[in-house]
């Protein structure tokens, strides 16, 4: 069991803010940490890693990482940290990056095999693609068999197909090592696939906490579909109005009445939902 009780004053982009987090995490859980930028996600991760200080307590099983008297330095916390920008050591080959953490050659080879990097192990990071770099970074973070794996938007710089591939590898690693994991992510499909629990932060406090399916599904009552999007345009066509809405990466048209059109402003955040239709799912 990991117990986290933290408090820290932050000077964010939106002025001063209190990071006030109280969390209990089961061993082996995979937690997704979501929330708008500036809500304190990265800071929380850095405090857990010991890279930033805060008031409160962090207890991992019987080990105390932080309380009123002790602050355990990052070196002694046995954590793995995956940075968004990979943060590999450019002067070391892929294999050396892993062995730098721990001279366990067997573990290094095993990790490189799982992530299909064995053939690249003597290459320098600068010669790798973004996806390959992040896999190396993931392997490196697992090298000291961490008690807690922290990932700060590890896949956000990668293209969608590479993301899916890495999500599978993260899952494989999580299943094999059973490492308690906290991952910052904005991508609902990623959170749904990987996490067993999602914690949503806003202005430094937890506003939502639960199973990803319950938290992420936006439908309520008899609604079958419900999407959030941004209103891009409203056009008058004969007697009706057509709203153009951007949902995810796609644009949709929705017919609205004159009254509805009056209340909408371009740039509004809107929800598109529908009832009673049986959706048709077909392969692309």
């Amino acid at each position, binding site marked *: 069991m990991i117990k986290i009780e933290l408090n820290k004053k932050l000077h964010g982009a939106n002025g001063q803010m209190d990071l006030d987090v109280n969390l209990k995490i089961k061993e082996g859980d995979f937690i997704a940490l979501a929330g708008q930028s500036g809500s304190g996600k990265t800071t929380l991760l850095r405090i857990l890693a010991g*890279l930033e200080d805060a008031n409160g307590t962090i207890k991992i099983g019987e080990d105390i990482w932080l309380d009123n008297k002790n602050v355990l330095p990052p070196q002694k916390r046995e954590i793995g940290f995956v*940075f968004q*920008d990979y943060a590999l050591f*450019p002067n070391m080959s892929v294999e050396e990056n892993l062995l*730098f953490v721990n001279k366990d050659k067997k573990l290094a080879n095993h990790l490189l095999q799982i992530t299909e990097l064995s053939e690249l192990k003597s290459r320098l990071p600068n010669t790798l693609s973004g996806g390959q770099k992040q896999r190396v970074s993931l392997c490196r973070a697992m090298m000291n068999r961490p008690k807690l794996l922290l990932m700060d938007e590890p896949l956000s710089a990668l293209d969608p197909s590479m993301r899916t591939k890495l999500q599978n590898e993260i899952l494989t690693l999580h299943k094999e090592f059973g490492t308690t994991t906290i991952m910052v992510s904005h991508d609902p499909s990623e959170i749904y696939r990987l996490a067993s629990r999602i914690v949503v932060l806003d202005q430094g406090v937890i506003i939502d906490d639960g199973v990803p399916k319950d938290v992420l599904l936006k439908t309520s009552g008899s609604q079958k579909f419900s999407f959030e999007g941004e209103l891009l345009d409203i056009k008058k066509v004969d007697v009706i109005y057509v709203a153009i809405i951007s949902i995810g990466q796609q644009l949709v048209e929705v017919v609205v009445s004159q009254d509805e059109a009056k209340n909408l402003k371009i740039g509004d955040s809107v929800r598109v939902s529908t009832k009673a239709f049986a959706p048709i799912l077909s392969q692309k």
Partner: protein
Amino acid sequence: MLEILQNLEFTPFLLSFKLAALTTLILFILCLPLAWYLSQTKSKAKPFLEAVTALPIVLPPSVLGFYILFALSQNSPIGAFFDEYLGVKLVFNFTGLVVASCFYSLPFMVQPLQSGFENINKNMLEASYVSGKSKFETILRVAVPNIKPALMTAIIVTFAHTVGEFGVVLMVGGSIPDETKVASVAIYEMVEIMDYTSAHIYSAIMVIISFLVLLSVYMFNSKQNKKFGGFHK
């Protein structure tokens, strides 16, 4: 022509290079921790320290030379201490030249190292801490190997700058043959006694060496940048 070259005294050059090599070595050892501190600190003393280390760039060498001479002479407490307890005289000999050169060339060692360390991706250092590595090991195995162009610049420019110094050397060392008469001082004396042939040869050698040194730095740095992708931001 050959005859002239054969008759030429090369000790001043050897002395210049010995002085530059020693100064560079001492400064490298002293400045590595100082540059690291300056690159990482958020202390209010940072601008103050930076200004002090940069002083030798703007001060006329005569001012620097005068203060060093004043501080190291046997009439000052520092000079007296060294003379009395360690039996070392610090002016008008080679030891004094090394001390003076260390002051004179300090910024040329500190500044490239500091900017090299500042350009290192902080996440990379943190990745090393999280992996259980101490600050010392991180500096040695992660920070220093990843600022090779800055290291090269710092070492070569400090060396070249020390070879090229004149004012401070003349004031603190004078011009004692085989002891403090370095190449730049020798050229000055040749011009004074109107021995233009020797001055020409000496000066040409200085120009060629300096050019080759700088060329090697730039070539090395562009090769490194290709290999590692610049300053790894």
